[in-house]
């Protein structure tokens, strides 16, 4: 069995990132000797990768870890008769700070890495062609220089019905339908089939444009690359411009209805980046499917909105649902926009 020890140590050294370049070369040569060697290595990697994925998915009890590991380190420092008490204290403090800093940064990196993996799962799920219906709730509106005001139609824009209570239907490929209600309870509908965008006011002609972004300003987010109508693009932006963390949610915090665990991904905007200050995504821990999104201080013209989008349905919509013709009577006048 002794001859097997060296390859085993090489494999374990590889798993722990502890091999020198020469040892790595040795491992590579050993793998090439026989297909069984490659298979042994592959099986070790399978366990190693699952260990990482399983443990990284748990939130680290950071404070507990930090104190316990530092206590252990402190125990190893005492008793040097050559050092004065001041020097010992200084050295101990330096080692503690160094250890703390090392652990802090490594924990931060690991947690961020795990959060990025979670976001990747959400992104992959969002790329499905599945239709989703969200209800929009405007929790708060802050207008710069003029203080807070209640959830009202957007100021300094052509008067439109409020977003609060609107229904947003999305499908991959930039397709969306946004239905808002006027004060009279009439629908004001905007949307896009991915090739042209359109707006149906309660009166007047239906406006249709070959520019798919023509009516984007009806929803916040397009100014800062976090468009609500294109989940995939918005989620990619979170990877670039936001610091990410995630945690598990108990059933008392979010009930998924199917017994699945829910998780919360929190994205906090980095300095100098544009977009909402904070984005919170509640998602299904198994599928990565979005259940609820919350955007805090989302820029919208002169306003900053706190918005919540709650998943209402994932039922398939009809194939022509994102065509304007599905939302008005056939003889309605159509006006092409330039």
């Amino acid at each position, binding site marked *: 069995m002794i001859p097997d020890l060296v390859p*085993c*140590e090489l494999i*374990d*050294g590889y*798993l*722990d*990132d*502890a*091999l020198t*370049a020469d040892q*790595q*070369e040795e491992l*590579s040569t050993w*793998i*090439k000797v026989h*297909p069984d060697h*490659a*298979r042994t*290595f*592959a*099986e*070790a*990697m*399978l*366990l*190693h*990768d*699952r*260990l*990482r*994925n*399983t*443990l*990284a998915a748990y939130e*680290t009890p950071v404070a507990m*870890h930090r104190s*316990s*590991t*530092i206590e*252990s*380190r402190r*125990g*190893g420092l005492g008793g040097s008769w050559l050092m004065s008490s001041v020097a010992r204290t200084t050295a101990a403090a330096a080692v503690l700070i160094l*250890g703390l800093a*090392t*652990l802090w940064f*490594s924990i931060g*990196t*690991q947690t961020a*890495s795990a959060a*990025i*993996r979670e976001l*990747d799962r959400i*992104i*992959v799920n969002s*790329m*499905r*062609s*599945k239709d989703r219906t969200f209800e929009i709730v405007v929790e708060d509106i802050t207008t710069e220089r003029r203080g807070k005001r209640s959830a009202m139609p957007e100021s300094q824009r052509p008067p439109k019905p409020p977003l609060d209570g609107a229904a947003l239907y999305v499908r991959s490929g930039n397709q969306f339908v946004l239905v808002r209600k006027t004060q009279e309870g009439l629908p004001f509908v905007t949307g896009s089939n991915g090739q042209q965008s359109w707006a149906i006011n309660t009166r007047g002609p239906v406006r249709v444009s070959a520019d798919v972004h023509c009516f984007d300003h009806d929803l916040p987010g397009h100014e800062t690359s976090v468009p609500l109508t294109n989940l995939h693009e918005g989620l990619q932006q979170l990877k670039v411009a936001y610091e990410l963390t995630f945690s598990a949610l108990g059933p008392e915090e979010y009930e998924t209805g199917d017994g699945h665990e829910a998780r919360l991904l929190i994205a906090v905007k980095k300095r100098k980046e544009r977009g909402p200050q904070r984005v919170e995504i509640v998602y299904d821990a198994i599928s990565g499917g979005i259940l609820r999104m919350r955007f805090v201080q989302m820029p919208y013209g002169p306003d900053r909105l706190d918005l919540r989008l709650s998943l209402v349905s994932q039922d*398939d919509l009809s194939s022509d649902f994102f065509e304007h013709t599905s939302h008005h009577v056939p003889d309605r006048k159509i006006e092409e926009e330039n």
Partner: protein
Amino acid sequence: MEEQYQQAIRYWTLAQPVVSAYVAAVVRDFRDRDDVLQAISVAVLEAFSSYDPARPFTAWAMGIARNQVGTYLRERKRNRLIFDAETVDLLAVAFEQIDSVQTRKIDFLKECLAKLEGRARQLCELRYQNDLKPAAIGSLLGMTPNTVAKSLQRIRDQLRQCIERYAALEGGQS
């Protein structure tokens, strides 16, 4: 379309542990690893309509993974800590041959991890949760890097044996 997508997700869920382990084996930077794996999962979903159900799905997905990994490695070929192309190919073949029975066995890891206690649990968490190498773990716990490395090796052996026990138990019951 939706049914096809659901099927792609089902297949991918089964193949993903093997593909992920293959990527982890040859892409050492864990941020890059996540990016490569994401690119593979997107490519798998996009190409699913061309998948021939007569072929094993994992082998088909591994073909896509090999292409993505190949692109990644070509950009970093001067790094001596990356396996050469021949080794990467041999590993891809080895991963393709891992069957579903083996990947299902690994599912027992959760039960086995729950049995880890004390120092073993702490070492495991520092290595896998906090991504610390043996030298860093050793300096935090007052152990030599070699002792940490040996301990981690033992812990992985214990977990492997525990998984085998669970698998044998399940095999005996079914």
